[in-house]
């Protein structure tokens, strides 16, 4: 069998059955199914919010301010009488969007950097790795604080701040994979045929790095949400009037001394449930896709 031509031809059927195999092994674990289910529910609810939510998140109701959870308002109301459940769902849109965008940007940039760095080696590798090292010289949240403070409170800037701190994760991961596979036979074969370097890196080798990347990205989604929430809590992230889980929790902080517990509790719970689901899903994916990483 000629390895020269078959690299792409054989991958397509292999990938399809790999997906089926993945699903089968994933569905064995109850927790991961529950996590996946929760995430799907959260995502769908967030996406369909304008349609399915009974209340307008910004509509005040002077008669029903600071009401505890009831049948009318499942999660209670805030100082202005706004329905908390609706606000939490709408805030979820923001958190998920930020996390998704940040992860996508970090993944693309990090994978590209890591791939080039790992494949080319030499001074390019040294330079790029020094840049990565510099980013990692700070605790990531602190760096995100600095970038968010420097750029300003807009959503795009928060995405950039988080993305920058996440780039090293993917860069190192892909670089490691690259170092491992660039000497393998199919890479050699692709080189022999005369493929340009860029094509080899991005078309032939990179797709084989998917499994650990998928695991990391899933876990990183959780971190991204925690980061944007914490940034918003201390005031460096998303600011009102846009609602966001961390900011909503901050609003609730002042009410602890007066006993209105539902204002801080539910947004935080939403964060925890979502992050937990991403973590469980990521762990399950890791067990299924990359048993080498097991045990952590």
């Amino acid at each position: 069998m000629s390895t020269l031509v078959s690299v792409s031809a054989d991958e397509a059927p292999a990938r399809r059955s790999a997906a089926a195999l993945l699903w089968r092994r994933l569905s064995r674990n109850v927790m991961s199914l529950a996590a996946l289910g929760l995430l799907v529910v959260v995502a769908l609810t967030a996406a369909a919010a304008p349609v399915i939510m009974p209340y307008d998140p910004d509509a005040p109701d002077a008669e029903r301010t600071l009401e505890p959870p009831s049948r009318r308002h499942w999660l209670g109301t805030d100082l202005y009488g706004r329905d908390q459940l609706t606000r939490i769902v709408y805030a979820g849109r923001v958190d998920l969007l930020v996390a998704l965008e940040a992860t996508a940007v970090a993944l693309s940039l990090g994978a590209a950097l890591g791939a080039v760095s790992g494949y080319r080696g030499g001074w390019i590798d040294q330079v790029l790795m020094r840049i990565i090292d510099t980013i990692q010289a700070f605790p990531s949240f602190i760096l995100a604080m600095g970038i968010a403070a420097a750029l300003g409170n807009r959503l795009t800037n928060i995405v950039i701040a988080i993305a920058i701190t996440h780039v090293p994760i993917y860069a190192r991961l892909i670089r490691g994979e690259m170092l491992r596979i660039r000497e393998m036979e199919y890479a050699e074969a692709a080189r022999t045929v005369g493929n340009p370097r860029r094509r080899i890196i991005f078309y032939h080798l990179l797709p084989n790095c998917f499994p650990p990347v998928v695991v990391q990205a899933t876990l990183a989604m959780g971190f991204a949400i925690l980061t944007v929430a914490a940034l918003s809590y201390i005031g460096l992230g998303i600011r009102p009037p846009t609602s966001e889980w961390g900011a909503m929790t901050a609003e609730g902080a002042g009410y602890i001394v007066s006993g209105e517990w539902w204002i801080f509790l539910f947004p935080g719970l939403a964060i925890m449930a979502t992050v937990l689901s991403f973590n469980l899903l990521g762990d399950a994916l890791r067990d299924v896709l990359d048993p080498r990483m097991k045990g952590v």
Partner: protein
Amino acid sequence: MLGYLCTRVLLVVPTLFGVTLVTFVLTYILPGNPALVKAGPLATPQHIAEMERRMGLDQPMAVQYWRYLRGLFRGDLGESHTTGRPVLEDLIQRVPATLELTLAALAVALVVGIPLGVVAAVRRDGWLDHVSRLLGVGGVAMPTFWTGLLALYIFFYALGVAPPPLGRLATGITPPPLVTGLLTVDSLLAREGRALASALHQLVLPALVLGFSVMAPLTRMVRATMLEVLESDYIKAAWAAGLPRRTVIYGDALRNCMIPVITLLGVVFGFLMAGNVVVESVFAWPGIGNYAVAAMMSKDSGPIQSFVLFVGVVYVFVNLAVDLVYGLVDPRIRLR
């Protein structure tokens, strides 16, 4: 060993440069014109231009970076508008509060987290293991600010055992004479019982919250390492040699587990710093994190970048210290 030491120490230098470069870039791209702010609201355009020239803001970026570095060496981290003092002074004044909180939280995390991880690995699938895994998975998903608020609600509002989050000492208690800046230590040294009690009382909840937030990842890592060690060849050989359980598990295995755990302490410190900012915010703890955030709220952007720089530099040195300790403890590095 010497080679390892030298390489590690030398590597610190370019890393520090990198750190200063990053914070410089962040300061550079900050919105707003510092000359405008410094010149005051009544300044004329000429005044502003003159101020710009004096502050070197019209120079190319590289020159400005050089000035920035020189300023750092002189200890010039800018000034804070809200306090009116040099940022460095503010930071130094507030570091002890952060330090006390961080040390207390670290103690909590180590004292509870490490044994928990070890026992979870030794009695795999026992109830303690399940608890530790639950804590690990759940704890990592809980936002620290939320844990803090939850703790406040339960222990302060509902149960009334925790004090109101108003700072390091209850109102009305005079602080002890300044020795280390750590109120617990200072009041102990000065034998002021009331101050000590109050300081501890105020410290407990934030320390527990912060400690818990780093305990989760720490326990997970300790457990994983211990499991790996327990499966190693030399442990199997130790069993085959008839050594008692206590020696094999809590002697050999534990020693080998603790060595890589040392390297984790650097990462743990990073988590602590991150959690610190949030916990100080929740509990109104007068540390450097709170300072930076509060300044930011008043549009005072200098402190936050200096805070980032400060933390970055400390982080670099903490990691260096961790590496050096590791090199001393692990015979494979200590003796080439």
